[in-house]
């Protein structure tokens, strides 16, 4: 769906020279600042997002994730690389075509909502339709549908500052959905919300994803949010990709100490699957225990493994991959194996 290739964003006076120069692009952030006066917010990032996928980009503040998502629709102009969407590089699009992409194909939800305080909820939601020239009756009807979809029915005539933060972000979500885009971009949409409301909104996104099935690129600094929502997760640090994979891959096989440190607080039993903890069968093992698939989450397998008096076989397509016994399960539950 979206294919990002070798994307760079460098801020500074000699920004253009950095990606092409092997010496400059090898420098650390600090050295680059000292030598060229430039900041590389995104350095050589490549990834693919499949249709219908929820793709999460995660990193701490300053890791370049917000810049990255803005580069996708050129709200920030990338310095080098390609963003291929529907077979064409978005970087080649002229102003008119780019505007058209933004109007019909992409839409974005912002951390601080970016609502228009002088317009009612309904007019905020229909704003995107209005600027692409849709008639008033039609856009009001469509906006009403979306307002109901995000659970704001009854508030359509309120002004944004009369709503709570969570409800304002629902307006932001509705505005993004109103244009029926192919891709939804979320820039830390829930970071400014209270934890409880944040959980509600995460569930709302999951529900909407089920209902409308859009492709989503989701930026967050919160690992549990990333694991909850993401089909795949890209971890960034200082503008560079550190690791890209599913949640259990990150927890089970962290690419480096940075990721390891990052995932250390995760409740592993909820994320890891049996394939990450199974051990090869040895001749001493009894192989007549119950069978489970390799993608079963540890938490769900716990009861079955502990109840059985023999090790559980991990089987995929009739093939024995390994076995899991009480010891392996308890190691994960007790959190010893780090």
């Amino acid at each position, binding site marked *: 769906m979206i294919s990002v290739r070798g994307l760079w964003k460098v801020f500074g006076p000699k920004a253009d020279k950095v990606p092409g120069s092997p010496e400059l692009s090898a420098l650390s952030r600090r050295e680059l600042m000292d030598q060229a006066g430039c900041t590389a917010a995104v350095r050589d990032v490549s990834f693919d997002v499949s249709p219908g996928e929820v793709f999460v980009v995660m990193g701490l503040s300053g890791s370049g994730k917000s810049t990255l998502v803005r580069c996708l629709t050129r709200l920030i102009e990338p310095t080098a690389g390609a963003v291929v969407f529907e077979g064409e590089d978005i970087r080649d699009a002229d102003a008119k075509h780019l505007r058209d992409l933004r109007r019909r194909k992409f839409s974005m939800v912002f951390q601080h909502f970016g609502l*228009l305080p002088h317009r009612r909820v309904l007019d905020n939601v229909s704003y995107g339709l209005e600027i692409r020239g849709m008639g008033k009756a039609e856009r009001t009807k469509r906006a009403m549908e979306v307002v109901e979809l995000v659970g704001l029915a009854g508030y359509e005539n309120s002004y944004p500052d009369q709503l709570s933060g969570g409800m304002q972000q629902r307006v932001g979500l509705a505005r993004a959905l109103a244009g029926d885009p192919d891709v939804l971009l979320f820039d830390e949409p829930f970071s400014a919300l209270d934890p409880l409301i944040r959980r509600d909104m995460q569930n709302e996104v999951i529900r909407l994803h089920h209902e409308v099935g859009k492709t989503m690129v989701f930026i967050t600094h919160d690992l549990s949010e990333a694991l909850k929502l993401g089909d795949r997760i890209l971890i960034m640090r200082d503008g560079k990709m550190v690791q890209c994979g599913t949640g259990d891959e990150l927890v089970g096989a962290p690419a480096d100490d940075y990721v390891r440190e990052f995932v250390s607080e995760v409740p592993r039993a909820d994320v890891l699957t049996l394939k990450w903890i199974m051990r090869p069968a040895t001749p001493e093992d009894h192989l007549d225990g119950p069978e489970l698939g390799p993608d079963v989450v540890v938490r769900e397998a716990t009861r079955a493994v502990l109840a059985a008096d023999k090790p559980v076989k991990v089987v995929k397509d009739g093939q024995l991959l390994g076995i899991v016994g009480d010891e392996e399960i308890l190691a994960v539950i007790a959190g010893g194996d780090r």
Partner: protein
Amino acid sequence: MAAVADAPAKTGALSLRAVPRKVVIAAILVAWLVLFAVLRGKQTMTLAAADLTGLHRWFNDLNDSIGADRNSNPLFLYFFNEIRLVIDNLVTFVQNLISQPSGGRPVPTIGWLGVVGIVGYVSWAFGNWRVALLAVAGFTFFGLQGLWQESMDTLALTLSAVFVSLLIGIPLGIWAGLSDRFNKVMTPFLDFMQTMPTFVYLAPLTLFFLIGPASAVIATLVYAAPPAIRITAHGIRSVPATTVEAADSLGATRRQTLVKVLLPMSKRTVVMGINQTIMAALAMVTIAALIAAPGLGKTVMVALTSLDVGTAFNAGLAIVVMAIVLDRVTTAASGRAEAARRSGNRFAKWRKPLLVAGGVAALVTAYLSHTYVWAAEFPGEGTTGSNIAKAADSVTTWAQDNLSGVTNTVRDSVTNGLLNPFQTLLTDSPWWLVAAVLVSVGAVVGGWRAGVTAVVCVGLLIGTGVWSDAMTTLASTIVATLLVMLAGVLVGVWMGRSPMADRFIRPGLDAAQVMPPFVYLVPFLALFGATRFTAIVAAFVYAAPVTMKIIADGIRAVPETTVEAATAAGSSTWQIVTKVQLPMARSALTLATNQGLIYVLSMVVVGGLVGAGALGYDVVAGFSQGELYGKGLAAGLAIVLLGVMFDRITQAAARRTRA
């Protein structure tokens, strides 16, 4: 000699690291006093009132030659004269409408009833019914005062100037809001235009546009457009970046972003800018009486110069009332959208028919006032006005008879104890000594850049040939600023520490800032007579509000936790104020000094009208006496130079304290 003059400057440079600034400045002042004692009265560069220098004569010749070429030089024929013609037509049109006899009739097109009706309707439509009542009452009061025509002349000039200011200012403001580059180019010009005392715009403009309403409107325009530009740009700039980004992300064009996002979101701010523009315009229109602008300002000025306190008070009161009405109505207009939205839609469906009905009623009053004499000319003889004047006169007489002991003591003690010694020190020292002191103090306080500015300004000041008068003005300005800062710190700290005090004092300060500076002179003229001290007191009253507000805000901005920590450590109130709050608010203090100096300077020069003499008097005399025109222009230039020098030095000091 030169070596002596250099000495303090060198110490200044060294001090930046080693010696505290206070010590250096004290050393400079002591050196000055010692040298003054030795050299008093030598090389003072005094110039008698009727004496002229080569520069002044050259300005006179320039004026004469421009006067001679006015209708032959293409620059005038096709540029300045055209501008004057357009503005003149606009002013005449508005005047015919409301103030001057027009179209062969003895009365203007719309008489008093129509004006009152329209003003009430407009105030109600854009504001609310309360300000509409205020406006109707205020305008009726002008009639009762016997000042209807003068008030309408002032209103006509103000409206014309505001109209042109907004026509130019809002588009420029939008541009400056959108383009960083244009904003950067624009800012120094706006700073400069707003730093200048209102007074000094007048002289150079008369050179190009002659004396009269057109020049008055153009001078007003130059003074009143900057707030419109600045505040519009500020409004556009303060729209949150995420909102603009969100519009971009939805594929809005630049035009759509401007029309649907930026302009609606900055509307409230822009209306506030219009308020500022109107108030600035009113202030300037009254002062433009000096270049023969008709209206209330002229009445005040004529009365002031003949020391007729009663008449001046009556007309001054009309200016105050007009200022209050215009301010309240535009403030209500800026709050209107908000209020309407909050109040729910209860009255919304009635609003439209009511607006139409009100509009019809206003048109009916206008028609009546066009047709019938009773509605065209304000009835009565303006007896209220003469009663007010009489009352003011009797209060003045009473004050002079009974309070003269007190007022004279205050006046004489400040004059003899502070002003005279200081003025003597400045005017009787050799010019090169004062120049060296100014430059070195500037460099120590504001850094080397400010020092360079001071060198340039002082050099040009010497060139203007009115050095001695400039020093007299400088003495008054510094004395008044010291008083202003003293009061500013006292009241500002009080307001900053006590929300209660703030709530009570602030509205008074806001109201005081709305008044055109002109009217301050009237009551103090009554109390203190035509002296330098009157100008100083008027300047004090004019500059104190802004100073107090800045200091109060600075004190308020000191983080509560810091104060709490100091309290927890057992500090007394005095210790908290002197060791925590004032030091932490010192950038507010320098900013307050900056504003205080600029405000004081502009008022001290206006004080030239009431016996303060010096530069202000030179300028006024230049307008009335042809042979002094050049000297007046030079004096105006000297005022500008003083203003620029104060502004640069204190700005630099403010930047330093912030760092």
